[in-house]
Structures are given as C-alpha cells and as structure tokens.
C-alpha cells in the first residue's frame, strides 16, 4: 500500500517568509496529489490538486510542485501571514488498490505550520 511522509510535524516561520512543506510518497505513482488545510477542531478544507502530468500549480500565494521522479510534492506559501497558521495535509489517490469509482484518498499525518508575527 502507499505510504506518505510529510517532512515534519511542526514548522515555525517568520511572517512574510515563504513556508515550504514537503510530502514524500513510496511505491506507486499517484494520478494526482492534493493539499488540504485543517484548523484546530475543524474538518480539512481542500486547497489545491496537481495531476501527475503537471509540474506546478498556483493559486494566489500558494504553489504546489509535483516531482514524480523524486516521488515528492512541495507546497509553498509565499508572504506568509499568521492567518496561514494551520495543519496542512497531503493526500494521494490510492491508485490500483481503489475500488472502481470510489476515489479513495490516503492522507499524510500533516505538518503544523505556525507563522510568527
């Protein structure tokens, strides 16, 4: 089965800097990879999806890259703000283990980002 590792449990950065979070996976290459944001006591919220044939995706201050050779995705938040403080989850399709049409995801354990004013 797929294994996902997010580089660290917690990351502290100074306001205004770029935060970079890492998601590594083993075994098969996923068809797509997603990033979610989760605030304390809340459900995850979808941010970005990147497909296997895409190298980079952007949305406002967010940027995601996908390197299928390294089996890695990087998630960047530029000009970070204290409001960006949250846990960020990486999620992948489970590929050949999924039932037809089910679109199951497997999630990383998340990285808790703290942006310090």
């Amino acid at each position: 089965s797929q294994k996902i590792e997010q580089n660290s449990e917690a990351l502290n950065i100074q306001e205004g800097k770029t935060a970079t979070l890492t998601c590594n996976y083993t075994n098969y290459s996923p068809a797509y990879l997603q990033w979610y944001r989760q605030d304390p006591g809340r459900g995850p919220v979808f941010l970005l999806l990147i497909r296997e044939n895409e190298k980079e995706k952007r949305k406002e201050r967010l940027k995601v890259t996908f390197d299928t050779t390294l089996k890695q995705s990087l998630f960047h938040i530029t000009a970070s703000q204290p409001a960006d403080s949250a846990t960020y989850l990486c999620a992948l399709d489970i590929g050949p283990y999924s039932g037809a049409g089910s679109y199951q995801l497997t999630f990383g354990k998340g990285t808790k980002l703290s942006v310090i004013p």
Partner: protein
Amino acid sequence: DVKVTQSSRYLVKRTGEKVFLECVQDMDHENMFWYRQDPGLGLRLIYFSYDVKMKEKGDIPEGYSVSREKKERFSLILESASTNQTSMYLCASSDVRTGVEETQYFGPGTRLLVL
C-alpha cells in the same frame, strides 16, 4: 458552496452504548466517507459508500458499521462503544463528475468521548 453537516460537534457516551453519528451533504454527491483522526495517526478511513445502499470497508472497519439509505445521508454506527473509539470523526463527500471527482469536502467533525 458544498455543505457537509454532522449531527453533533461533541458527544459523550458510556462503554457498551450504541452510538449513531449522522452526516448529511447537500450537493447530491455520490461518494461519502467516514474517517477517524487521532494524534500521531492522521486520518484513517473507516468506511465509504459510492451509492445508496452500497458500502465498502476502509482501513479500520472493525467495531463500526454504516448505513446509507438516502443519497444525502451517511450514518456511522458504533455497535458497542469502547474507550479506544474515543476520537475525532470526520465525514466527507465527493462528486463523480470528471474533473472534480477527486476532491473531498469535509464536515466539521464530531469529537466523541467514550467513558
């Protein structure tokens, strides 16, 4: 906006009780999922359903069952609650239309404490 609601934000139950967690989505999504989330273990899939009355086991189905009698509603049942089922329970749904099928929309979660 997609809205996924869960019947309770917080729930306290006794060991051995039967517990029902309800989830409703208002976007006519085919797929619905139940996860539990524990510190250090992340999100783990309990059950999912891809159609009314259809269900599939996830990674940790033991001690749980589900019911999907209507498309918009997916219930998680703890037949006999145990302390190791104390957790945050999250429901999610997703569409099946091409191009949007991969994204899951989550409810606010139910924090269950079993005493």
